[in-house]
């Protein structure tokens, strides 16, 4: 049966795909590394070990860790609640979880400014207790959690739904506690999906720009994550510095892609979402 496309069609289509992906994806990536290293290694090292650069790296790590930690707690408990029990409003709950995916990052930033900003009814209380949320690190963390909110739960829920709850019910009838059931029965099933979600979540948390940009207030050396610091350098025409700091994020992005592909291979989870 000759169902194969003719060689010429095949060659043209593979050619189009390769050229398109090379120009659109690989070229910008290589260009970052090239521009970062062009003025020489010493300039590069000076740019990435600058006091403000180091602080932005540190802040990015802290924000990413906190956002991932909140999302792990939320993702695991939510997946458990949504897949092991039936209750009213379940559909509504899962719609709300997915909502952040559809909201523009700028609007995500805006809603936190409206919640905790000067015109909010919460503001006098926060002010009294000396809590600063917007234009400070807590705001950045909240916005990052918002934009990465569904990432872990969405990976786990389909796996748990497919697996059913017979095993957990049997374990519960035999007297196992919630934590024991989770650790010994549920977690082994969702291990890869969970790690996959953590990878996706860290990638997005590390690189979030729009929402964080609204909430940071741009205090140099205080509330700049790496993407914000890159913006400041770029707008100050320090292209070498901007691309040097960017190249760290490029390397992270490549590592994340490799991890993603390995995990996808493991979990045989072909779907992106």
């Amino acid at each position, binding site marked *: 049966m000759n169902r194969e496309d003719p060689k010429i069609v095949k060659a043209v289509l593979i050619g189009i795909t390769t050229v398109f992906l090379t120009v659109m994806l690989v070229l910008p990536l290589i260009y970052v590394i090239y521009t970062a290293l062009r003025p020489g290694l010493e300039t590069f090292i000076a740019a990435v070990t600058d006091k403000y650069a180091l602080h932005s790296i540190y802040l990015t790590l802290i924000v990413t860790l906190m956002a991932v930690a909140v999302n792990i707690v939320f993702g695991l408990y939510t997946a458990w609640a949504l897949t*092991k029990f039936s209750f009213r409003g379940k559909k509504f709950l899962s719609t709300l979880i997915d909502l952040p995916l559809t909201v523009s990052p700028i609007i995500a930033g805006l809603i936190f400014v409206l919640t905790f900003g000067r015109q909010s009814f919460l503001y006098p209380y926060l002010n009294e207790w000396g809590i600063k949320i917007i234009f400070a690190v807590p705001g950045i963390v909240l916005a990052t959690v918002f934009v990465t909110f569904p990432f872990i739960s969405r990976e786990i829920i389909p796996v748990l739904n497919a697996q059913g709850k017979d095993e957990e019910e049997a374990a519960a009838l035999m007297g196992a506690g919630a934590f024991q059931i989770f650790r010994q029965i549920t977690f082994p099933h969702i291990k890869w999906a969970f790690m996959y979600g953590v990878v996706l979540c860290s990638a997005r948390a590390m690189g979030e720009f729009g929402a964080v940009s609204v909430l940071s207030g741009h205090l140099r050396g205080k509330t700049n994550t790496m993407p914000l610091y890159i913006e400041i350098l770029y707008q100050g025409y320090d292209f070498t510095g901007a691309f040097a700091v960017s190249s760290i994020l490029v390397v992270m992005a490549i590592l994340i892609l490799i991890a993603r592909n390995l995990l996808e291979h493991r979990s045989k989870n072909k779907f992106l979402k």
Partner: protein
Amino acid sequence: MSKNTKGVIPGFGISFGISVSILSLIVIIPLCSLIVFSSQLSISDFWEIVTRPRVIASYKVSLVTSFTASVINAVMGLIMAWVLVRYKFPGKRILDGMIELPFALPTAVAGISLAHLTVSEGPVGALFAKFGIDIAYTNIGITVAMVFIGIPFVVRSIQPVLEQVENEYEEAAFIMGAGRFETFYRVVLPEIRPALIAGFTMAFARCLGEYGSVVFIAGNKPYETEIAPLMIMGELQEFDYPAATSVALTMLVMAFVILFINAVFQSRASAIISGIR
């Protein structure tokens, strides 16, 4: 809710409680404050803000560039999904693995790289400048950035469906004398059309809200290359919260309309996947 529907598995109270508290802090309370704040706006003020010529121009720029980029992504995504599902060739796994790069690469990094490549002194920009085409600081540049971030949506939406399309139908059509193009058009395309449209609308919604990769390449000239999210950002920097909220509300409505269309097609797409299985 009766007790027995919860079954024997323990942990409902704590898991439900923790989910709802975090959900409230992160999503529900902030969204409510958006609603509370916008209810304080008068309709006439709202209308005055969202119909300002500069705001209307920004919607137009956003809609036109997002739409163009999503059409390009739909066509390229279809070709790429086809190549990645149907053909075997060396390097296929690498190409397949690269598709998600726009998710992994921070948008600001993509933004400065694309901008720097396409300014008239940049390596790609210089090439196009010879033909009198400017990319950076024009709508073409905005579209390029949006094509970049939209790549994964269409490909990853079509791929699973295309893998499920049974070869028998194509073979049958072929045996009955249909040409290659006719077979694709009449047999394959109807099967993947819902997934194609779903991928298109997801990319479209994402492009409309995109900020990081676009601002650097856009030039941000009022009335010409200013996108709607940047309007919101501008109002926020002047602490004009009513204006920012009004523009944000119109954008949210646009996004929900697009996602509603998506949900309609998505349910049809999953019906096709399960139907084939």
